[in-house]
C-alpha cells in the first residue's frame, strides 16, 4: 500500500518496508529533546527505573528555556536537576543561559535536525521540525525518559490530511496567518492523531521561517505532526546550518489521505485568533475596535530573525502607543546578536519596546510579561487558552509579527495593510 511522507519516515526508523495507519510500532530516534519544565520529570523517571546510561550522549538535547533565566527558587531547583544530569551524563547538547534559546528555534539553527530525521521532544511544539522534512512530534516526560535510555519510542502510525497549497501570499501575510486560517477552518481537533502534510505549487512561495511557523502550530489542530516536502529552500537551510546529511522522503503519488484541502495562499488575509482557542479566528473585516495592554513578539512560533525584520520595518521611526507594554523576545542568542548588530534592537528601543534575552517566558504565563485580571495581550505566540499568559480573567489574541507591530503603534488590534 502507498505511504504518506510521514509514514515513510516512520517505516524507515522502525526497520520496516511498509507501515499502515493505525499500526503500533517501535522506532529508533535521531534526537530526544527536553526543557527545564519537562526534563526534571523525565530524569526522575529515568533514575527511578534504575537506568544508568543514556543511549547516545550526542542525540539528546536539553534546553533550559521555559523559566530561564530562572524566575524563582523553585524554577532554579528544577533547572539544577537538569544541569547536574547533563554534567553527569556528559550530554553534548545541553544549553543553559548564555547559549540557550527557545528550543524549537535553537535546534534547527544549531543544525541538530535535518530532513528524514525522527525526533521526539517533551514539548508539544516539537512538531516544528516538519518544516525541514523531518518527522517530529511532542511527547511527555516518560516518553522522553525512555527515549534517553533506549533511543526508541512507540508510535501509532498516523493517517494524514493533505493541504494542497497554491498561489503566493500577499504582502504582510506570513506563515502565522496561513496556519491560523487553517486551524480556523478545521478546528482545534481537526487533525487529531493525524499528520498534516503540506504540498503543492504554493510551497515554493513560503520561506523556511513560514514553514517553521506553520508546522509549529500543527499541534493546535490536534495533529501528531506537520510536514513539508523537501525542496531547494530546505536543502539550502540545512546546508547552511548542519553537517548532518539530509535524507529526502516523498509521499507516494497514490498515498491515501483522510481529507484534502485546497488552500489558495493569495486569498489569505491577516488573521487573528480571539480568546480562548486558536481556532477562534477572525479577519480584519470582523475585528472592530479592540484595545490592548501588551504586545509580545517572540516564542517558538514567531521569534526568528525574519519575524523581527518585519516588526522593525513597521516600527522604524515610530513610537508604541502610550499605555501599551511591548516586549520583544528574540528566540536565540544568535538572533539577539544579529538584531543588535543590524540595528533592529535600536529601532525597537527607540520605539519604546523592551527587548529581552531569549526565553519562552510570557507565552506560557511563566514570567517576563504576565497579565493582570482583565488585561489583554496581543501575541505572536501559539496558545490563547484561559489563563495562558497570566490571570485566568486575562485575554490573549494570537497574530503575526506584522499585526503585532502595527497594533503596538495604535494600541488596538490593527492590520498592517495600508500602513
Amino acid at each position, binding site marked *: 500500500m502507498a505511504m504518506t511522507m510521514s509514514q515513510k519516515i516512520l517505516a524507515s526508523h522502525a526497520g520496516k518496508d511498509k507501515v499502515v495507519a493505525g499500526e503500533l510500532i517501535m522506532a529508533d530516534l535521531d534526537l530526544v529533546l527536553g526543557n527545564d519544565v519537562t526534563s526534571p520529570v523525565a530524569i526522575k523517571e529515568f533514575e527511578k527505573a534504575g537506568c544508568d546510561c543514556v543511549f547516545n550522549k550526542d542525540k539528546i538535547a536539553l534546553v533550559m528555556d521555559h523559566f530561564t533565566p530562572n524566575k524563582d527558587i523553585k524554577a532554579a531547583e528544577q533547572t539544577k536537576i537538569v544541569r547536574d544530569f547533563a554534567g553527569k551524563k556528559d550530554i553534548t547538547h545541553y544549553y543553559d543561559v548564555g547559549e540557550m534559546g527557545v528550543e524549537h528555534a535553537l535546534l534547527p539553527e544549531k543544525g541538530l535536525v535535518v530532513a528524514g530525521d525522527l525526533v521526539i521532544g517533551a514539548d508539544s511544539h516539537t512538531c516544528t521540525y516538519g518544516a525541514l522534512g523531518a518527522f517530529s512530534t511532542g511527547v*511527555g516526560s516518560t516518553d522522553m525518559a525512555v527515549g534517553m535510555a533506549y533511543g526508541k519510542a512507540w508510535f501509532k502510525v498516523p493517517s494524514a490530511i493533505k493541504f494542497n497549497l497554491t498561489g503566493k501570499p500577499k504582502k504582510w501575510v506570513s506563515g502565522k496567518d496561513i496556519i491560523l486560517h487553517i486551524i480556523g477552518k478545521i478546528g482545534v481537533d481537526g487533525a487529531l492523531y493525524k499528520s498534516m502534510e503540506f504540498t503543492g505549487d504554493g510551497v515554493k512561495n513560503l520561506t523556511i521561517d513560514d514553514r517553521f511557523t506553520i508546522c509549529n502550530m500543527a499541534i493546535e489542530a490536534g495533529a501528531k505532526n506537520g510536514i513539508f516536502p523537501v525542496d531547494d529552500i530546505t536543502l539550502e537551510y540545512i546546508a547552511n546550518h548542519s553537517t548532518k546529511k539530509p535524507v529526502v522522503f516523498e509521499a507516494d503519488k497514490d498515498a491515501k489521505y483522510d481529507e484534502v484541502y485546497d488552500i489558495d495562499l493569495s486569498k489569505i488575509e491577516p488573521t487573528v485568533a480571539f480568546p480562548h482557542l486558536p481556532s477562534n479566528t477572525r479577519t480584519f473585516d470582523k475585528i472592530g475596535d479592540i484595545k490592548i495592554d501588551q504586545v509580545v513578539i517572540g516564542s517558538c512560533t514567531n521569534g526568528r530573525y525574519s519575524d523581527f525584520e518585519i516588526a522593525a520595518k513597521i516600527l522604524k521611526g515610530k513610537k508604541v502607543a502610550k499605555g501599551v507594554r511591548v516586549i520583544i523576545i528574540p528566540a536565540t542568542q544568535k538572533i539577539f546578536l544579529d538584531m543588535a548588530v543590524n540595528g533592529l534592537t535600536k529601532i525597537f528601543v527607540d520605539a519604546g519596546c523592551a527587548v529581552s534575552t531569549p526565553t519562552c517566558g510570557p507565552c506560557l504565563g511563566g514570567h517576563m510579561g504576565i497579565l493582570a485580571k482583565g488585561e489583554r495581550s496581543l501575541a505572536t505566540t501559539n496558545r490563547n487558552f484561559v489563563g495562558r499568559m497570566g490571570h485566568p480573567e486575562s485575554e490573549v489574541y494570537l497574530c503575526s509579527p506584522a499585526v503585532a507591530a502595527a497594533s503596538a503603534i495604535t494600541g488596538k488590534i490593527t492590520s498592517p495593510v495600508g500602513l
Partner: protein
Amino acid sequence: MKITGKVIKYGDNVDTDVIIPARYLNTSDPKELACHCMEDLDKTFVKRVQKGDIMVGGYNFGCGSSREHAPIAIKESGIACVIAKSFARIFYRNSINTGLAIVEYDGDINEGDMVEVNFDTGVIKNLTTGVEGTFPPFPEFLKNIIEKGGLLPSMKSN
C-alpha cells in the same frame, strides 16, 4: 479491573493549561501539583474531589502542552479514571505511560452520576441513569504497558 466512582464533569477542549497552570510548573512534586489541579477552570475541584471519583470530559480532552504534570496532577488528586469523548494525543499517551486510567466513550454522563467502568469487559454502566455502553479495549501493545505499570517498566522487562 473495575472502577466505580462519582462523576465530576467538564466540557470540550479541556486544555492542560487549565488542568495545571504553567505558573505551578516550577515544581514536579505530584502533591503540590494536585493542590492546583483544574484551578483555572474550577476552583472548587480540589475541595470537592474524593478519592475514586471519575472525571468526565467532552471532545479533545487534554489538548495543548505536553506537560506530563497534567495526568500526574489528576491522578494524585484522587481521580481514578478519566472518561472523554476524545483525547488529545499527547495527553492520551502520557496517561498510558504514567498509569492514569482513561476511556474513550461518547455516551451521556451527568455531573454527580455514579458510573462503573469495567476494563476487562469494556462495559460502562451508569448506575444513576441505568444506561449501559461499551468502549473499545486497548490494543495488546498498550495493554502490556499498562499491565507492566508504565512504559519504563515494560521496556525494562522486554
